[in-house]
């Protein structure tokens, strides 16, 4: 894989020889359809889509859905081999392997190497995110952002209760306990409890605890000592220190609870910064950090959304032009100022972006956490198998069994391992 990525970066660099023939208006008059998720990246970039039309003469029709509904629409269109969608957003850490195996992605490799404008620097993207978009010789998409779960915490409440930011996973529990005793009206800790959504946050607990989802022999390993410790800690934090009804919590309930000043710690996506800071109430009292290390060290989760061209599109070139425009250094620098953490190194070092970061201390802590996650993190959310999405449900089931007090940890992890072994065997 490393060799392939190096070759791709080299080819992309050589491809700049073609850049002088590059013509933005080659496909003028074409209309392309973009299936988009209601994601901060899409909401920000689409404000400028008229500029793309002016530059290229290509019209972009946008269909926006909530994340899950977008996948349903995609499934209907792609299953019918329809060319109705030219471009779509995709989360490679979740569905990349499955969509690639189903043949839904057009290979962007020839476009990256042969049809690029001179200022499009493919080698500038985060290596980890490009690796997640690479399946053998197929490049399934271009990274749009970089994100991962971070711990938002209330500095004022910490000060009032005489606690310092947790330095280890064990610390997290004792901090939550002290906050509960100090101010019972505040929810000490909140994170995801919704079955299908929680592996995103739980995975960091598992990895920091020293666990992994699969053994070298490709057996599910939730019942390892580290696995059981992670399950127990995560469920205990939510059950004893989380809000009532946390079992149904996803990102929007978490952001809203924290933004309203009702939670002292929220472990949620870095992407939620904008939502958390909405209204400005949390701007001056919030700190951001990675989940503290555990016995296994620090292994933050880092993922990114990508934009892909449909294998059934009849306008692949025009679609690629939109991809190129939307992921260009110039556009990503503009989006960075709206809180979309950039997947390009050059943008991360851009002076206007650094100035934006330095304007608020919370932004500095936020980007430090993301940079650290980018440098040391893993994109393993759920099992590294084609049926990754189904695997997340079993992880969520095991956590919720404990959270709801329905099963002891041994039974919950053993049942999950049994189901997951069957899933791995089909891979």
């Amino acid at each position, binding site marked *: 894989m490393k060799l392939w990525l190096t070759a791709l970066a080299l080819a992309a660099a050589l491809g700049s020889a073609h850049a002088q023939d590059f013509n933005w208006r080659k496909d003028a008059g074409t209309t392309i359809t973009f299936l988009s998720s209601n994601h901060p990246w899409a909401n920000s970039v689409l404000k400028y889509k008229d500029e793309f039309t002016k530059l290229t003469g290509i019209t972009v029709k946008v269909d926006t859905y909530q994340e899950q509904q977008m996948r349903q629409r995609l499934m209907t269109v792609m299953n019918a081999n329809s060319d109705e969608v030219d471009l779509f957003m995709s989360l490679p850490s979740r569905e990349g392997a499955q969509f690639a195996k189903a043949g839904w992605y057009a290979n962007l490799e020839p476009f990256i190497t042969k049809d690029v404008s001179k200022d499009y620097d493919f080698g500038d993207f985060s290596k980890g995110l490009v690796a997640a978009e690479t399946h053998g010789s197929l490049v399934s998409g271009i990274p749009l952002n970089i994100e991962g779960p971070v711990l938002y915490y209330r500095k004022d409440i910490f000060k009032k209760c005489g606690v310092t930011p947790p330095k280890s996973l064990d610390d997290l529990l004792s901090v939550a306990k002290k906050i509960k005793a100090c101010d019972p009206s505040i929810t000490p800790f909140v994170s995801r409890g919704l*079955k299908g959504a929680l592996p995103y946050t739980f995975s960091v607990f598992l990895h920091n605890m020293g666990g992994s989802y699969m053994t070298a022999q490709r057996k599910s390993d939730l019942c390892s000592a580290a696995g059981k410790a992670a399950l127990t800690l995560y469920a205990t934090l939510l059950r004893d220190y989380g809000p*009532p009804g*946390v079992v149904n919590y996803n990102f929007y309930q978490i952001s809203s609870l924290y933004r309203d000043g009702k939670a002292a710690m929220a472990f949620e996506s870095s992407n939620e910064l904008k939502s958390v800071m909405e209204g400005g109430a949390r701007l001056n009292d919030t700190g951001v950090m990675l989940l503290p290390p555990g016995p296994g060290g620090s292994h933050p989760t880092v993922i990114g959304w990508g934009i892909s061209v449909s294998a059934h599109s009849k306008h692949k070139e025009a679609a690629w032009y939109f991809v190129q425009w939307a992921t260009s250094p110039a556009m990503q620098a503009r989006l960075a100022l709206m809180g979309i953490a950039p997947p390009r190194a050059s943008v991360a070092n851009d002076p206007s972006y650094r100035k934006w970061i330095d304007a608020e201390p919370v932004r500095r802590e936020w980007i430090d956490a993301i940079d650290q996650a980018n440098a040391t993190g893993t994109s393993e959310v759920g099992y590294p198998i084609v049926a990754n999405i189904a695997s997340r449900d079993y992880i969520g089931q095991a956590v919720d069994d404990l959270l709801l007090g329905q099963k002891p940890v041994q039974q919950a992890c053993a049942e999950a391992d049994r189901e997951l072994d069957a899933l791995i065997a089909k891979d």
Partner: protein
Amino acid sequence: MSTTAGPSGSLTALALPAVVFTLLMIAFPFAYTLWLSFQSYTLGSSEHFAGAGNYLQLLNDPLFWNGIRITLVLYVLSLGLQLGLGTYIAVLLHGSKRFADVLRSLLISPFVLPPVVVGMMWLVILDPAIGAANWILQIAGLPRSDWLASPRWVIPTVALIDSWQWTPFVALIVLGGLQSLPPSVYEAAQIDGASRTGTFWRVTFPLLLPSIVTAAVLRSVDLLRFFDIIYITTQGGPNDASNTLNIYGFRQGFEFFNIGYASAIMITLSTIVLGAVLAMSYARRRAQW
């Protein structure tokens, strides 16, 4: 012969495209789903004929049986609530002389609301931390509830939400039935000295049965394939406690991309709905007077 066959022949010819179109629109998706249910087809793997494999897998799938159980419990609870309360409200409205028009207009309002709005509205009201429902319980000195977040209470809560929306619909159907009853039977009951309760159970209720069964048929179809409010509020949780057969089939198909297996679940659900509707239609014919 030619004088009668001509117009009838041209009527058939005129109606034929519409009939064929309608049949295709119903028959094609059903036949395609039926065909898929006999395939082993998961996104990313090759598709091949699986015989009755998907149906045999259903028999050994605890989540399928969980889905059947939840679907039936929700059906019985909701239908019972809606028919009971709907009939009661209809009788009250029938006897009400003042504000009858205003009350009828108000009754329509819940079921014209889109299910998404209803789901979101109740999600906020029933939020265990900040919702109004727990605030009211607290004022009344009752213990707080986790409502939709409690595996024990999630189905009764969903039944309550659905009944809030659809009881007025049942009430309007039953009210229509009440208004069409012949006054002579009441005069006869009055002459015979029947009490008000006796008149209701021995005269009104038997005569109303066809209307009540009609409402039951209409609600049964919706209740057995219950989806929208659960999808918006709990997505089948917590821990599959509201994972109805329809939600389970949907998740298998559109989240896990197990198309063949999801089709088998949906064909089974369609068979259950069809069976219930046929049974209800039979009951309605028996109740006709």
